[in-house]
């Protein structure tokens, strides 16, 4: 993933978190014990924490199967159409 693509992922997660109806409620659990809210996921991706790097790898792997643009579009539009939690 090049710098432009990485920036696109960061931006898409920020839009997703900003528009999320429950940005501070846990939305993702990991088997390692981590629990993350949308706001925490977006911040981790933007700041390159250990989890942020993992989340980028998850997106990169999915992009190989589904295309990066489709995933980022889905993140942005998912945020736009989310109903109440």
């Amino acid at each position, binding site marked *: 993933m090049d710098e432009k693509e990485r920036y696109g992922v960061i931006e898409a997660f920020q839009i997703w978190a900003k528009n999320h109806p429950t940005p501070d409620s846990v939305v993702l659990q990991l088997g390692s014990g*981590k629990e993350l809210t949308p706001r925490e996921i977006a911040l981790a991706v933007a700041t390159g924490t250990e989890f942020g790097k993992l989340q980028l790898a998850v997106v990169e792997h999915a992009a190989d199967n589904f295309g990066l643009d489709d995933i980022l579009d889905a993140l942005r539009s998912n945020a736009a159409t989310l109903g109440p939690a």
Partner: protein
Amino acid sequence: MANISVVTPGCDSTARTMKGWGDGVVLKIRSSPHKLVQQLSDNAADRNNCNAILKSSDVLFFFGHGAIDALLNGNTQIIDIGNIVGAKAAVIVAWACNSASQLGPASVQSGVSTYIGFDSEFGWVTRAGNSSYARLTAAIIKSFDSILSATKLQSVYDELLAAFHDMVHYFNNDPAGSIEPDAVLAKIWINWNESRFRLLGNGSTQIY
């Protein structure tokens, strides 16, 4: 009839979620021809007790946190190569992060026939209204039936991969999240889980 033990540390919120899967396999074992040697939970899931069950069990199910070289209760290594060497257990199924990276291969090298687990973190979406966790749970519970009815472990593993694959495509058909919230997050994480799930060792192993 196999002697089976289940370790469910339940040391934090996520581990308690995973303990629910462990409770599920305990119920299945009790209604099967197999013998439940022990379920170790909470403080009882310590290294000494794990030493004992590894020596007395043919099969070990673990549901909790993992590192690349160990299965954990909190930050404490309760199962690692130190107590797997010389163990009776021929099959280890670890619903835990990372352990198929180093512990799995080391276990197989030291005599464990089959090790099933993840070689990275795995995750699931917990948002209300998203069926990711329920679908994952259904696949895991279904795998218990297959394991306990002498299905070859390669087939069980393939069934789980197929279930992951079906989940990915279910969420892929809902790209805008109009049916389920955060469908895209569920899709990419299950796609990741599918790619990091491993069967190490002998896929022909069956539990009789």
